[in-house]
């Protein structure tokens, strides 16, 4: 008996998981618009959405920049740079984000303020720890944590480019920097972009940890609301709904990006 592949029907091609997610979303929307309890929770939490997005965006941009620099150091010809960068990545990657938040907020910040005040001595002015906002401390901590992960993404991308490409470029007389800018990096980008976008989605979720410092993000407002009203289950439903709305829509965009990069690969 010969095997005949079945024609894909409309039924087998439908992404049911996506429909299920869509259905959940509609349910959630219906709840926060029609149910008085849920709509009140939604109002209480909606102020945190902007904070979550702001913290994530700023930290992610900064982490990408630092991550790129660290990756360049890790792949550079200079031994000292390589060792220092590897040390940085290994140490930072091994510390939980939550622990790191406390380090930055309550050890790093006072030390930094002390150092700045020491420098300001001749000018007879001082700054206080309070002027270094907790939101910024949270952003700094997230930035440093993620810069280590992102550095590894960049490094893997840079190392995925065929060595022959680099040798060809060098033999054409291009400088090291031009090689990187014109040959290595554009090709590495295809490998880098999808995991980088995925890290952005992870960061949205990890930004919930900044609530430990009292930053008024979605999670913190959820904690405040639920501990006052004892409506834990209902409140965390809304918290999850808000995060899912952001993360799933972004994940779908990442899928499109991956497809686009695959189809346009030469």
């Amino acid at each position: 008996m010969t095997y005949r592949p079945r024609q894909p029907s409309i039924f087998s091609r439908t992404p049911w998981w996506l429909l299920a997610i869509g259905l959940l979303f509609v349910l959630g929307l219906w709840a926060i618009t029609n149910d008085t309890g849920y709509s009140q929770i939604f109002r209480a939490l909606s102020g945190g959405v902007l904070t979550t997005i702001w913290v994530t965006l700023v930290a992610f941009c900064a982490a990408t920049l630092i991550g790129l620099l660290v990756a360049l150091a890790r792949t550079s010809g200079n031994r000292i740079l390589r060792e220092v960068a590897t040390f940085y990545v290994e140490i930072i990657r091994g510390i939980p984000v939550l622990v790191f938040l406390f380090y930055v907020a309550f050890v790093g910040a006072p030390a930094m303020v002390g150092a700045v005040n020491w420098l300001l001595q001749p000018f007879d002015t001082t700054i206080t720890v309070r002027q270094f906002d907790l939101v910024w401390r949270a952003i700094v901590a997230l930035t440093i944590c993620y810069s280590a992960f992102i550095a590894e993404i960049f490094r893997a991308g840079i190392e995925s480019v065929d060595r022959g490409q680099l040798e060809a470029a060098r033999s054409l007389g291009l400088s090291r920097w031009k090689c990187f800018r014109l040959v290595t990096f554009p090709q590495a980008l295809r490998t880098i972009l999808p995991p980088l976008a995925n890290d952005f989605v992870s960061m949205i979720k990890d930004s919930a940890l900044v609530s430990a410092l009292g930053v008024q993000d979605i999670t913190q407002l959820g904690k405040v609301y639920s501990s006052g009203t004892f409506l834990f289950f209902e409140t965390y439903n809304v918290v999850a709904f808000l995060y899912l709305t952001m993360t799933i829509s972004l994940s779908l965009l990442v899928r499109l990006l991956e497809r686009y990069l695959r189809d346009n690969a030469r």
Partner: protein
Amino acid sequence: MPSFIKSLAVAAAVSSLGLGATQAQDALPDLAGRTIVAVTENAYVPLNFADPATGEGIGLEYDLFNEIAKRLNAKVDWQLSSWDVMIQAVRDGQFEVGMDGITINDERRSQVDFSDSYLTSQQLMLVRADETRFTDAATFAADASFLVGAQAGTTNFYVAVYNVLDGDEANPRIKLFDTFGTSVAALQAGDVDTVLMDQTSADGYIGANPGAFKVIGEPLGTEDFGFIFTPGSDLVAPVNAALAQIKADGTMEKLQQKWFYEYNAAQ
């Protein structure tokens, strides 16, 4: 049940209080040896916390509820969970009774059943040792630049809102942190200017960080703590009856003396 086994079952709590093993139990309901599943967090000195020496859960709430159970002829199965999980789980009936210095309020009554108040909390203002800009709640409240650290929904939050500041729960002068320890770290770092806590906790922090903190002003606050039960629980009435007896015969006073004045958290 022989009296020596009974006194063993009650654990060290009562023996340390020097109570006789024969209490007048006639007036109280008899739960016939039933096991009550109780939950707490072990994160609230001196109500419930892990003994630094043994890791065992100890504190006023442990002693008090063990005593209540003893008088009702019941056993206690102690469980641990975090604050968020505790309340939801009691509401769902996974645990029968929960305690963690939980403030009684009307909004919460719609979610869980409360016992009568077993304690009226007294909060003190913990400040940095070099604090001279304010000396009590009134001088603190007068200057809008002074900030207070608290945890949402806890006693120190409510006392800060209603007894120190203006009764606005969204007052920007309150900085909310996740845990007690984080608030105190923020106080030490200079992010906030005071954190409210009871005498025992304050003594503990002062003892553990010599020269870092001090207490100012008069005790504040009229927050009432209650046990929480699954809605409709048949335990509310018996527990309230035993609680009334414990308050009436001076046992509650002894417990407060033991945990708020004699116990030293910084040992």
